[in-house]
């Protein structure tokens, strides 16, 4: 069984992911824990958030009297604009994404393989909701960081030799941040554990991981 109290909580995972943001970056954040990354942008680092429904320069959630139905993010939540904001069509939005103009995307996942394959859009037999912009993001954004729980509630690994679920992208993940630590993935070279969360041991990580990984902590 996975001990859910071990390692980082959701906010700490988001804070760790925020360390990957560099000054001047254009950034796309996925739904769930990745959304929290916006709360932990390091001091002195200025980033511009892209929302793939057609906005660059996404501001915070609105105060109640500022809510505007014409102003939502890709998670369909109401948001606000900033002085730097621009709006554009869906095709132009994905020209930014697929054209390699976005520096980093931080996304959630169901499974990641040791080669960097990602599965995060469907579970066959259950309701299929769709991939939205995830396949375009992993194909086009320069760096893909995944933030997810290390294992399922029952302790089954999510870092696998091969993904069992339908893929979102093949060999697309560059980094995985879980509640237990940080892994880097290099194309053709595999996965490497580079950081452990406080009070987490390599053996404990191994007990909850199927993927092969080098230890570099």
């Amino acid at each position: 069984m996975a001990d859910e109290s071990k390692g980082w909580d959701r906010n700490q995972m988001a804070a760790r992911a925020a360390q990957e943001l560099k000054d001047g970056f254009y950034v796309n954040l996925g739904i769930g824990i990745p959304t929290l990354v916006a709360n932990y942008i390091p001091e002195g680092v200025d980033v511009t958030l892209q929302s793939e429904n057609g906005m660059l320069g996404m501001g915070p959630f609105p105060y109640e009297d500022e809510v505007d139905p014409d102003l939502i993010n890709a998670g369909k939540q109401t948001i606000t604009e900033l002085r730097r904001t621009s709006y554009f069509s869906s095709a132009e939005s994905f020209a930014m994404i697929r054209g390699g103009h976005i520096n980093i995307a931080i996304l959630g996942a169901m499974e990641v393989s040791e080669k960097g394959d990602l599965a995060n859009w469907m579970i066959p037999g259950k309701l299929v909701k769709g991939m939205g912009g995830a396949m375009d993001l992993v194909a086009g954004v320069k760096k893909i960081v995944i933030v997810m729980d290390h294992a399922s509630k029952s302790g089954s690994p999510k870092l696998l030799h091969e993904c069992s679920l339908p893929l979102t992208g093949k060999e697309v993940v560059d980094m995985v941040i879980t509640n237990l630590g940080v892994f880097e993935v290099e194309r053709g070279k595999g996965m490497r554990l580079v950081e452990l969360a406080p009070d987490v041991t390599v053996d404990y990580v191994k007990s909850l991981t199927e993927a092969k990984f080098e230890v570099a902590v």
Partner: protein
Amino acid sequence: MKKIQNDAASALDGLLFDGMTIMAGGFGLCGIPENLIVAIRDSGVKDLTVISNNAGVDDFGLGLLLQTRQVKKMLSSYVGENKEFERQYLSGELELEFNPQGTLAERCRAGGAGIPGFYTKTGVGTRIAEGKEHKEFNGETYILETGLVADLAIVKAWKGDEQGNLIYRRTARNFNADMATAGKVTVAEVEEIVPLGSLDPNNIHTPSVFVHRIVKGEFEKRIEKVTTRERETA
């Protein structure tokens, strides 16, 4: 030629037929052609193929056409907010073709620009790529996707002029601008029809050549997820 129509029903007069393909702009419930969707429902036209990023919610937007079973097939990227959709899809009553969101947008843009196909990295190595032509460019693999043209595109804009020039507001532009180019006939519903000369020609989002009919609508503008923050108290 007069493009301005009196109401949504007359804006669609003579354009609808069973089995047709309709593109509908919007992202979630943001920037959807609310009035034209209702008019399509009321017309009773059926066996529709609908191209839209999402499928509305059960009782609003494109969900209305699902309730009445007027849709045969949906082409979308994300349909997670609609229970009736789920029921019809799982029981086999509704066909569904998933497109990655960027691929869907580009298919509309390409179709409207007379480009029948394009290569993209999106979906390579996934089930989206199955059966599609693969081609290498500079050592990377890409798949062939095709442009889309619809019998009818329905879009929603903020303001339009008598000529059919359109501007959108904030994130309500989304798929509307791309789909406006890809309809054999494009009908726009707007919040306000303004006299010629009152829109800044430097800031037209959809030039009038793409718009065949225009109608002023009454909008509910429902919000799916109202998310707010608290005001800090001094």
